[in-house]
């Protein structure tokens, strides 16, 4: 299973980069989100895959009795997901705003600096 996940991580990164290199800003954001997903999955995978044993101590126990999934990558990814949301929403609003002002989605048309708008 890990092999399949690694392939998916590779695919997410490849797809993300490909979209990032497009000229359309919309596609760029798609690429950004794909890359974010890929990175999250990567960190998650490196904590090893454990099925059915979340890092929650059972009721009445004080320490773990069974094996448990690594909590550190989970905490990292959780943070990353929320921050990623902040980034994505900002990026989405940004292209919306750019579109409103300049009426284009093409990055190459934003290449001039500080023109009168």
């Amino acid at each position, binding site marked *: 299973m890990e092999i399949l996940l690694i392939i998916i991580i590779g695919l997410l990164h490849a797809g993300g980069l490909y979209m990032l290199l497009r000229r359309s800003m919309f596609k760029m954001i798609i690429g950004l989100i794909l890359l974010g997903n890929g990175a999250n999955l990567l960190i998650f995978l490196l904590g090893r895959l454990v099925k059915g044993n979340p890092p*929650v101590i059972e009721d009445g126990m004080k320490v773990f009795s069974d094996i448990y999934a690594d909590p550190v990558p989970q905490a990292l990814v959780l943070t990353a997901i929320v921050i990623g949301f902040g980034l994505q*929403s900002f990026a989405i*609003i940004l292209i919306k705003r750019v579109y409103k002002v300049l009426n284009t989605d093409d990055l190459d048309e934003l290449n001039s600096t500080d023109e009168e708008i």
Partner: protein
Amino acid sequence: MKSLIFKTASTYLLPLLLLFSIFILLRGHYLPGGGFVGGLIAAIAFLIHSFAFGLKETQSIIKINPGYLMPIGLVFAIGAAIAPFFIGAPILKGLWFEEPFKFIGMVGSALFFDIGVYLVVIGATLTIMFSITDTV
């Protein structure tokens, strides 16, 4: 989004989801959940309501501008973080009441910290979504 069913459903969904979000928030220390998820669920609850009844209606329910929730949440979180400082412990050390409360369980600075996160997440998410819906 003028469907009657949706409108009726969301009237009931709002309190239910809010209650659920608080439940998720409070149990976060013991079971999956916590401030982030709780805050997101609460934000979604308000969003659904706003889709059904329009932004104005939702804003009148919340009463205050959701933007204010962010500083309030930050105050909670920072307060919980520096509270130990006043009793001579290092900043961010967990402080706990001796006895568990009814329904809630153990209460400590970590809980207030989580509440702060909860409020910030609601505030930030709603600010983002509302300002977009507003201008679309």
